[in-house]
């Protein structure tokens, strides 16, 4: 359920896996039953090519659910295609173009080059890339959507700085990528805005799918006095929440509401990125006549990116921390409004 995925896998396991599963994405694509007749069904075909597995209780599941909902509302044919291997992205996009797909949605930066390569050849197919940087030059039938997730992390830092008893907070990311670096810097900026003396420790697990490593890192952080960790590492988050559950007074800010149940007494909040809502909004617009490709920055005023307090934590969390969270929250709301109105400027810094 990662928001991000490295374009350069480092694990030897991934290397060997790639050889064995080389054609699996293409096979999955074929198994999806894509056909030209399906593509020309009422309203055309809208395809979601997701590069991370479904069943993540997070981004991919929410995108598939949103596409299904929109499909039933608008009457178009939909397909969700899991593309496991980067080597197959371009061929999948090309096959969808050949099949006459009306809209192709995909995610994360690793699909940028395949979309750039394919989109000009299929001008009638609209491509939407979620979690993307702007294309230079822009392509008329491509929309790229960026998210100001670091602003949510800024608010998380502000909250952490206020609620932390030890004055030490942490951050665990999947990999040191520009977007995640910006999140860590956002957290630091928010924490420092509330308390310049706060200590912020950042670490990266080197993987979005290694909960055991996440647990190790979080355990060491908590043992060093950190009492609040902002997660940013997809499936690795589970290990971080597990480490929080092993001690008292430990808090986590996660990335999806579905993580509340993993730590009802420890997952105090989330920095939300609602991919499903974003997909719903952008595909709805693309279905309208006159749509032209562009880059769309998505801020915390859209409902897609936000910092939210956990309602489960408010019911089941330690009484003192819950009371403190409730006291602090109006300040967070005020800061959120200040960012939206531009009164507070949070710098985007992608380097560490």
């Amino acid at each position: 359920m990662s928001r991000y995925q490295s374009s350069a896998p480092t694990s030897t396991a991934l290397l060997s896996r790639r050889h064995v599963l080389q054609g699996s994405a293409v096979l999955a694509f074929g198994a999806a039953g894509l056909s030209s007749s399906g593509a020309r069904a009422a309203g055309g075909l809208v395809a979601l090519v997701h590069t991370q597995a479904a069943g993540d209780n997070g981004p991919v599941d929410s995108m598939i659910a949103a596409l299904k909902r929109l499909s039933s509302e608008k009457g178009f044919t939909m397909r969700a295609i899991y593309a496991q291997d980067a080597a197959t992205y371009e061929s999948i996009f090309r096959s969808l173009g050949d099949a006459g797909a009306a809209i192709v949605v995909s995610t994360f930066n690793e699909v940028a080059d395949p979309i750039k390569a394919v989109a000009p050849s299929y001008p009638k197919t609209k491509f939407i890339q979620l979690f993307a940087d702007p294309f230079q030059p822009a392509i008329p039938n491509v929309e790229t959507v960026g998210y100001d997730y670091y602003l949510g992390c800024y608010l998380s830092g502000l909250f952490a700085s206020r609620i932390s008893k030890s004055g030490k907070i942490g951050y665990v990311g999947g990999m040191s990528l520009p977007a995640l670096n910006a999140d860590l810097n956002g957290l630091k900026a928010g924490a420092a805005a509330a308390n310049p003396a706060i200590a912020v420790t950042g670490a990266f697990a080197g993987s979005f799918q290694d909960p055991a490593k996440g647990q190790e890192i979080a355990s060491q952080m908590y043992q060093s006095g950190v009492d609040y960790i902002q997660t940013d590492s997809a499936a690795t988050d589970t290990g971080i929440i597990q480490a929080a559950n092993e001690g008292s007074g430990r808090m986590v800010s996660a990335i999806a509401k579905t993580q509340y149940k993993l730590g009802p007494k420890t997952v105090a909040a989330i920095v939300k990125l609602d991919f499903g809502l974003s997909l719903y909004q952008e595909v709805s617009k693309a279905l309208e006549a006159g749509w032209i490709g562009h880059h769309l920055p998505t801020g915390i005023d859209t409902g897609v990116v936000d910092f939210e307090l956990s309602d489960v934590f408010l019911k089941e969390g330690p009484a003192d921390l819950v009371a403190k969270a409730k006291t602090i929250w109006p300040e967070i709301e005020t800061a959120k409004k200040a960012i939206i109105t531009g009164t507070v400027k949070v710098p985007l810094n992608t380097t560490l």
Partner: protein
Amino acid sequence: MSDILIAVLRSGTPLIYVALAGMLAQRAGVWHLGLEGLMIAGACAAAVGVEQTGSVAAGLALAVLVCVLGSTLLWFVVEKLRANPIIAGLGLTGLGLGGADLTVQSIYGSEASVTAGAGLPRLGDAFGAFGVLSVLVAAMPVVVLLLWVLLRRTRFGLRLAACGEHPFAARSVGVAPSRMRLIALMGGGVLCALGGAELALGTLQLFSNNMTAGRGFMAFAAVIFGGGHPIGSALAALFFSIVEAAGIKAQLVFGEKAPRDLLLALPYLATVIGVWISGRLRGGLKAAASGGELRDN
């Protein structure tokens, strides 16, 4: 200090069990590159077994069954179909990784993770801070010792070593190398199951795709680093865990000053250096270069 020790034991125990499996295979003359696949299969089967039945024992039993079957398959392909064991091992790794994905998807309609809902029994409050560790952590030194006794102090162990080092000689005294390899690989399957189960159920109580994250290959490196000796392999695996824990600590302490990617790469760097040193000291590189198999006919 106990915190660091707990972290090392927690991350090192799965690695040690799997390294012991690789060591058994290596003693029998098979360079086992299927450890990663068996480890992920064991982790997946253990989590699915517990989730489906609610019984940790059933989860463990399922993991053992799956890993022993996988090991038997490797033996069949290597011994009966005359495949190169290194290629066959890599195939087994692919089968394990892909099979785990497929299993989770077909049972749960999900492609990502399984929450087991229960884990291995913990040592408990009687062990103080170490009480958070699972019983498999406590059992690990005993298993290492038993394997050492088995391999160094019993007729079976000597025969197994003979099959690995001089299969012709073993056959000349009536020992069937093929059968000995089957036993070694099946025993290794049990150990891989324990390693996978410890990874998934030790403290996390969940299975996540690709959660082994190359640990099987590190275990293989530990076998070479440890010279194919049970205690040496266990110590090598423990060394890798110490380096990994140190890498995390270095990130937390020096993260602002040192390149994070370098700190993250420390365990893998240590693996390469360790294997190189081992090769220099024991001639391991020469053995590896021989093609990784010892045929007796």
